[in-house]
């Protein structure tokens, strides 16, 4: 098949970007989308032209490295797949493929289609875990967990951290990403112990990174390659609200900080109240 590409090129985060056109006329439709870029890059290498940088690693939809916008859709027009799982036959109907990086202020472009998603790591570092050391834990069956809750926690935990949610959000909000971890851990008895602390810390870290607020456009839920639901955002709101109410009562370094007239806490509660999601 013949392919007409318009690919975003950008030398570095401060350089001005532009679209570069390429025409390929011998693309096999069984090729994956990234293999098509490989073919183009091998050609560019031998022509001594700068190759196109893009993120990828496992190429089977689980590591979360890859991610570009193809014709306006994060991870391309197919539902429930990552960029690396798109094959050229899925793109046959398009005359031109416009390929762009995630466009999010908190994800500065590193080069071409590669963006810096370290903000996601920092949000999780702020509290996206259960504070247990290795060793000295109880037997795995010591606490029974309902299958329903466990399965729900698993669904939330299947987030791959690709960043598509923020990329498609009109406000560049990363609330679905943050909520996925909150929701995963809040539904497990082991995770409940630090739930208040976790949600306050993670939301604070999220805001610090410069992501926008959620306005329930649901774009994230529609384009998430792993089908994560907006109900996790509802869970985050509940957790956040609960935590805010008791923050001043619990002796905790973080919460004490909130107690000292830090009014951004209140602003979150207000925000939370209009991130209302209808749960059916």
């Amino acid at each position, binding site marked *: 098949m013949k392919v007409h590409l318009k690919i975003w090129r950008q030398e570095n985060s401060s350089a001005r970007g532009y679209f570069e056109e390429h025409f390929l006329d011998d693309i*096999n439709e069984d*090729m994956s989308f990234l293999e098509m870029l490989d073919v183009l890059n091998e050609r560019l*290498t031998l022509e001594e032209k*700068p190759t196109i940088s893009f993120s990828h690693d*496992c190429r089977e939809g689980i*590591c979360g490295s890859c991610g570009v916008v193809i014709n306006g859709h994060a991870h391309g027009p197919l539902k429930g797949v990552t960029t690396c799982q798109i094959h050229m036959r899925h793109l046959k109907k398009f005359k031109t493929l416009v390929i762009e990086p995630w466009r999010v202020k908190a994800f500065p472009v590193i080069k071409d289609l590669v963006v810096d998603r370290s903000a996601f790591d920092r949000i*999780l570092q702020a509290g996206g875990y259960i504070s*247990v*050391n290795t060793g000295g834990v109880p037997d795995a069956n010591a606490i029974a967990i309902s299958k329903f809750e466990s399965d729900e926690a698993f669904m939330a935990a299947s987030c791959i951290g690709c960043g598509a949610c923020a990329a498609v959000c009109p406000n560049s909000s990363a609330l679905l990403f943050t909520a996925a971890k909150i929701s995963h851990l809040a539904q497990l008895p082991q995770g409940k112990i630090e739930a208040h602390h976790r949600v306050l810390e993670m939301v604070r870290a999220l805001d610090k990174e410069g992501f926008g607020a959620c306005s329930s456009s649901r774009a994230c839920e529609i384009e998430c390659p792993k089908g994560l639901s907006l109900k996790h955002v509802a869970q985050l709101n509940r957790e956040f609200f609960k935590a805010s109410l008791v923050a001043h009562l619990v002796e905790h370094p973080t919460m004490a900080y909130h107690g000292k007239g830090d009014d951004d806490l209140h602003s979150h509660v207000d925000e939370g109240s209009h991130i209302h999601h209808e749960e059916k």
Partner: protein
Amino acid sequence: MKLDAKIPPGPLKDKWSNYRFDIKLINPANKRKYDIIVIGSGLAGASAAASLAELGYNITMFTYNDSPRRAHSIAAQGGINASKNYQNDGDNTFRLFYDTVKGGDFRSREANVYRLAEVSSNIIDQCVAQGVPFAREYGGLLDNRSFGGAQVSRTFYAKGQTGQQLLLGAYGALNRQIHNGKIKSYVYHEVLDIVVTDGCASGVIVRDLLKGEVKSFSAHAVIMASGGYSNIYYLSTNAKGSNSSAAWRAHKKGALFANPSFTQIHPTCIPASGHYQSKLTLMSESLRNDGRIWVPRVKTDKRAAADIPEAERDYFLERKYPSFGNLVPRDVAARNIKEMCDAGYGIGATGMAVYLDFNDAIGRLGYKEVESKYGNLFEMYETITGDDPYGKPMKIYPAAHYTMGGLWVDYNLMSTIPGLFVLGEANFSDHGANRLGASALMQGLADGYFIIPYTLGNYLAGRGFRKVDSDHKDFIKGMGVVNDRIDKLVSLKGKVTPDHIHRELGTVMRNFVGMSRFEKGLKNARSEIKALREEFWKNVHVSGPKDGLNENLEKANRVADYLELAELMSEDALARNESCGGHFRTEHQTAEGEAQRKDKNFSYVAAWEYGGDGKAHKMHKEKLDFENVKLTQRSYK
């Protein structure tokens, strides 16, 4: 050089507890005086880094990825074994140990494998405490399944995403210590050499992949958890970036490389569709529970599957192995599929595939049941191939998947370079000549959570707090070597891309050092690899700058190392003049066509010493003694 595995004395079941009592300890307040480098952030690396940081050590960690969470452990599907005996079906530590030694075709070290089985239960406890959402029963307790032909149900799983969930658990523990300031994590940093000072590992040379800058870091000890080298076959189920460079450079600095030719080829992967193919996707082993593997009875039959009547199909695994049928172990299935394709019975445009057919299963169980069991796998298959497996049988072919070989380590998981520890797939230790399904995750986490925290302390205690500075001459020299090689690569400006040579290398490796091997083929591979290496250093073309993000340069660096490791793999396969597990020498097979071991002559670990540039490797043997298991011949008829 004399290899000493440092196996503790005493009965098998007491070795690890005796060891833990006998080791030297480091005062809790003194642990913070030690700096430790961890290479890799997969299950082994992340669990080691987190556990050591919790104890108080200062950790510096490197990954070539943009986040520790991307490491390829994330892609493991099936599950993780542990001898919990939650199912009351007769499992215990000894049985898991025995199954692992036997599954590895008696080419692993008893003491290490027993320890692995012993700590397996702790891993599950740890993961649950971290919030890993394993599959559960309706009563709220953990579910198990039988995996890879095991007689007991000891595999814990989280849908088909067990590796992901375990890695995210370890990544959480890692994040907590990054937050606490005990771990400094360097992403987009690739380790390109190990520094050895006065005979001990003293640090690493790394390249910042974004800036292109070559830097050095020193430490009291270095932990390598850099994974395996299946990508040497070019087409494998590994991530594109998975590579052997850190391990290979350590080897050239004095770490012996053990059983390099022991690789596992997974039987059920989606076949390559053309020369542009960049990787292969694994389809879970569980598909063989209900899918039937077949080829047409006539060679190069071009009819569609549906047009081939039952009588003209050859269900060759069921025919050859009536009792195990389609459920024979991975190596047996993979080899038989290859043999059928080589003999001309392969199907599809390339002839390098066989059918995996669910038609009978749909008839027997109904569409709904099949969908509930395999729906997500069928969907994945359809996305990649465009074929609907409910209507047309799947096409599958084996692909390189895991490397049992790796850097030689003793019972402490320390290589022959003092202070260089090797964990997870990067070491050779526990799987012998064939790894059982759901045991890779177990080993990676056992090494990181429960073994290295003890053995590292034993090494450091009594060595003093002094650390070699990173401006020491060994570091300056190491940086020079790395920089020179990069300069050479970017200056060659030849006519072929690094990928081109890598593809050629992969073809040679798949043909001669893959599922079945024979003397003439291996000798042929050796000379072809040598020719490719010469071609590479004459004619490779690396475009782009060296002082910035340059994927071409990264690839060239990795391919250059593969071209050396490949030769050692064929050398090792040639020297092991027997068949065992995944190492199948066609000269040595039983009347049933099974791998024929030669225990009298080959019951050893082949540990290879680097002889210097252009010189031959030297083999050292670690004799394997089996005091607790009886060596038997596998048979699946």
